[in-house]
């Protein structure tokens, strides 16, 4: 097979900016980077708890009221919601349910799961705070 290499093949490399090539790729990359915010929020929350553990409960609460933390958390919420929505969509894409002659579409799973998210969120608040 060495002979094949007499004439060079053209090899192309994927540039780090490949995800700008089309809309799907860009959406994908945004989806992946939302995970940064998910991770950072979690780390910040743990840091807040450490303030409490090494100081007082008030330190933790002040930390939560810090405008920078509030601001970041709001951004994190937006990205978390985006993350959740893509997750729901993918759930629908990889596990379609067959109803009669047709299969459920991913967007139907998205809507269904978003409703489920609202219910779960309410349940969590009721169970953990209101009760």
């Amino acid at each position: 097979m060495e002979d094949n290499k007499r004439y060079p093949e053209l090899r192309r490399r994927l540039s780090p900016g490949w995800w700008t090539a089309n809309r799907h790729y860009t959406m994908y990359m945004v989806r992946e980077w939302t995970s940064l915010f998910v991770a950072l929020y979690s780390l910040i929350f743990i840091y807040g708890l450490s303030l409490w553990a090494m100081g007082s409960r008030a330190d933790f609460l002040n930390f939560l009221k810090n405008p920078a933390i509030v601001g970041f958390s709001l951004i994190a919420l937006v990205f978390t919601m985006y993350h959740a929505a893509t997750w729901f969509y993918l759930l629908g894409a990889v596990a379609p349910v067959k109803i009669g002659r047709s299969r459920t579409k991913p967007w139907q799973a998205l809507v269904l799961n978003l409703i489920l998210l609202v219910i779960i969120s309410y349940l969590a608040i009721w169970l953990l705070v209101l009760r």
Partner: protein
Amino acid sequence: MVDDGRVEGVTAIEVRTGELVTILGKAVIIATGGCGRIFQFTTNGWIKTGDGMALAYRAGVPLKDMEMVQYHPTLLPNTGILITEAARGEGGHLLNKDGERFLKRYVPNKMELGPRDILSRAEMSEINAGRGFEGPYGSYVNLDLTHLGKITIEDKLPFVKELAEKYLGIDPEHEPIPVRPGQHYMMGGVHTDMHGFTGMPGLYAAGEVACVSMNGANRLGSNSLTECLVFGAAAGRAAARYAVKMESPSFGNPVQGEVMMEEKRIFDQILKHEQGERISSVRTEMQNGMEKHVGIYRDENSLKEGCRIIGDLKTRLSNAIVEDKDHVYNTELVAALELDFMLDVAETIPYSAIQRRESRGAHYRTDYTKRDDANFLTHSMAHKTPGPPRIDYSPVTITRWKPEERVY
């Protein structure tokens, strides 16, 4: 490569590098399929250029029953995409320009379920009588599925729907599909016995390229699958049995000489011309000529014209140019070699057909419309000569089923 009447391998081009490669083998099985690309309208892929038929033919094996060319009645015009029989099986109608189910004049008992050859001829007759539609790619008739309903089409004919939508932009639930007859299958091919053996030591063939004679003059739907599976296995076994008892061939003088001749032919002749016509124009004229003169309806004059055209084109091809002079992946050179094969194979069809002065199966002569078992219940055999092919006949072996009159 033939050495002392025994086949000892093949020469091939490694398309990647343009090099001629010699593959020695105790036995060779040809399984290259048909030669539909000889014709203008065909369901066959671009690569179905009859290479294997030509290889065997040039090596000295006769091509059997080459006049038996099956036409399929429902091809999309232009692209030759096949609309499956199932479309008619499920109840689709063939309609002419007047919206009439014209088959009632040809096969009233079977209508759309009639055999391929009769349906193809019926469509051609309608078109010739001016009752076809005119489109950019010639005349056609309509295949109407609209009355079958969404569920039947989606469940039973999903591929038909997909093809019509993808390649014509037509929704078969609401619009009829334009169709015309076109070449579909070669009943004829490399002469073999029922073990795929060609009669030349070491050479076997299986599939459409071969003519085991299981299809007679008119193949029935799906029998090509049987042909591949059953006779493919048989050929494989026979070749293996042969190979086990033979000595390995050596790259000796006769073989080496053949390779060098082939090398010379390709690099010093075909690639050398700097001026001349394109091979594509030769190819197009062959396809049009075969369609027009050696197609569904044939007669003495049209077949003579067919022979003449192919003869002319052979001369023209030898002076044609291959623009691409590269070694790497030279598809134009490949196309030139394939065209050379095709012309050899194409020639056997009108020559075999002209001598069969009868109509039988897919072979229909307007000047001899009746079947003539007394004179032509035989296989035609086309042999390669330096000039036009020599046709002789071999007897038909009839076992269980006796030939009967076809009535529909």
